[in-house]
């Protein structure tokens, strides 16, 4: 069949688990007759494409759900169009949420998926919770990732970290004792709408996907939208700017959901935000007084973190407070966290320092995640040892 060969040419090398983060999609396809069912079945059952029926074709007139890996999305869409087949995209962002589900399923005593709300494009926002004990009194760590959607190494690192955490619990003394004293929440994709956009439209998209009334420029920088020194230095009031702070603090649902969740729940001791790139490790500023009261301790912790991280492959991070780096960033999440009593608040800018920038090659995902893990454990151990 010519069209199978056509697809075969376009689909490249196989997908490798953790190595790449594709955006798979589930298409709901209306099949109208036996011929269409037959074509679709041949396509799906072909070994080359690793497709899956989610809801198999039993008879025409009923829709069929098919899972397509992202690498084949474009040719599939073209094919469906050429055959005049109607379809609906029903599930997006499958890969990361699929992995969260898988972790929660595999480790039910430790991990659970918590839905914290809906977003502008009606996607759900999920957090992965690790907890060994009940009781809301247990102190908690929040790990934030992918708030800027183009920083793909951030989402990739946290997904790896999630899997590493559950795998090492009960084996690694450090993470075991951390989890026995504290809960960990991982927000694996803090900006899901933006993340989808980087995979479908614009790889270099940074902001949310909300509309700005009165402007044809869309969206807000979610890391300038927090209620700390809002609309100050390092943010812009121009909706077209990459650092547009938004109409008001927490105007972005991505931010409001997290703020409400953290404030309602309470007991958070640590907030870590992963970004890329520049290889920086930053602690809060204390915008009101220019130097945070805990700056000395946080600086010391950060230096230990950088040392632990570098111990693996020699990757050097620079340590500094957020406001004295190359750029201030008013309204950012880590300063908000500190301002709201979450003492151990850190921002990582992961690899690299400009060679590939946001386009960090896939073969650096695991090395980056492994070294960052050492840094994260250092922070969590310090938090564990300084609970008050």
């Amino acid at each position: 069949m010519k069209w199978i060969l056509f697809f075969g040419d376009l689909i490249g090398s196989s997908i490798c688990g953790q190595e790449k983060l594709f955006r798979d999609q589930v298409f709901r396809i209306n099949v109208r007759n036996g011929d269409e069912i037959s074509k679709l079945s041949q396509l799906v059952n072909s070994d080359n494409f690793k497709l899956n029926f989610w809801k198999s074709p039993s008879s025409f007139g009923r829709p069929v759900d098919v899972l397509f890996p992202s690498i084949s999305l474009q040719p599939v869409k073209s094919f469906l169009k050429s055959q005049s087949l109607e379809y609906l995209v029903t599930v997006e962002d499958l890969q990361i949420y699929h992995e969260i589900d898988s972790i929660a399923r595999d480790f039910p005593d430790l991990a659970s998926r918590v839905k914290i709300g809906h977003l502008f494009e009606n996607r759900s926002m999920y957090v992965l919770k690790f907890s060994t004990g009940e009781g809301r009194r247990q102190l908690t760590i929040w790990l934030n990732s992918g708030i800027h959607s183009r920083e793909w190494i951030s989402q990739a690192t946290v997904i790896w970290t999630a899997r590493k955490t559950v795998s090492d619990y009960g084996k690694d003394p450090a993470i075991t004792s951390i989890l026995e004293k504290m809960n960990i929440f991982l927000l694996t994709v803090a900006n899901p709408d933006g993340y989808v956009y980087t995979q479908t439209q614009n790889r270099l998209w940074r902001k949310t996907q909300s509309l700005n009334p009165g402007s044809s420029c869309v969206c807000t920088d979610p890391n300038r939208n927090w209620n700390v020194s809002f609309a100050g230095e390092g943010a812009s009031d121009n909706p077209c700017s990459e650092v547009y702070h938004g109409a008001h603090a927490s105007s972005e649902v991505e931010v409001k959901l997290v703020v409400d969740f953290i404030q309602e729940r309470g007991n958070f001791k640590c907030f870590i935000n992963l970004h890329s790139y520049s290889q920086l490790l930053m602690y809060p500023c204390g915008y009101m007084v220019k130097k945070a009261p805990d700056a000395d301790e946080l600086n010391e912790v950060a230096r230990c973190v950088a040392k632990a991280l570098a111990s693996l492959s020699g990757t050097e991070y620079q340590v500094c407070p957020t406001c004295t780096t190359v750029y201030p960033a008013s309204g950012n999440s880590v300063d908000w966290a500190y301002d709201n009593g979450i003492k151990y608040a850190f921002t990582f800018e992961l690899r690299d320092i400009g060679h590939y920038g946001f386009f960090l090659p896939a073969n650096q995902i695991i090395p980056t995640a492994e070294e960052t893990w050492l840094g994260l454990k250092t922070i969590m151990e310090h938090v564990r040892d300084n609970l008050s």
Partner: protein
Amino acid sequence: MQLRRQPLPAPRPGDPDPAAPLLVLLLLLALQGAAAAPAGPGEPEDSGWRQDAEFPRGLLSQAARAALHFFNFRASSPSALRVLAEVQEGRAWINQKKEYKVDLVFTTELYNPEEGKEHLGKCSARVFFRNEKPRPAINITCTRLIEKKTRQEEDYRLYKYMKQLKNLLDVVSIPDSHGHIDPSLRPIWDLAFLGSSYVMWEKTTQFLHYYMAQLSSVKQWKTNEDAIDFDYTVLLHEFSTQEMIPCHIHLVWYPGKPLKVKYHCQELQTPEEASGTEEGSAVAPTELSNF
């Protein structure tokens, strides 16, 4: 892939000065007839420089980056591009207009390191930042990283390779979303980076710096004449605004000859101009890049 070392934090102002290379630079300029606050040929006319013991953090890295872009452009050698390894020492002077003069010493690595080969170089530079105005004036000298003959041979080898490349107009987005650059296209990337170095030098200010994020399209690739005639667009990532600046660059390169380059970068849209694109800074011809 060899990891780039992050530049170490700048030495704190007032620290003891082990700066032999810095002294050599200053001596050289003094011998050119400079005064205690040197103002040699090609430097801004303003005097009244006073040493700033508390210069802004990041100023030395900023200066090093600008100096290296200028160096790479002037060297015109896609096989010998350099990147910053670490800043070793530096001093800064400020004048009444709040412009900065920075003297610094830093180490460099090759942009394309070869496995198993150490290619650490050292540079001394003087950089003038004219506050928020771009195009910092640069004096820079670097120790030789590669023998001149080797470099010329390598450039010529790249040139011959590029001369036989065809169908480059189909090239879109290097690297791809996952950071992959096809090895056969790596020389194109390096040549694009060379042209971008000119642009990045000119656009760098005391507050803004750039990285080349992506080669987004090839508009023209002509090799029928002697030189390589390359017309392309890139996205430059601008710090600290986080903007992606599209730039259209047109370069002409022949090994051993100074690079010729023209460019046109797009400016950020303002809300009032949201209906159309605003064309940005104009072509900036100099005697170094006449077209």
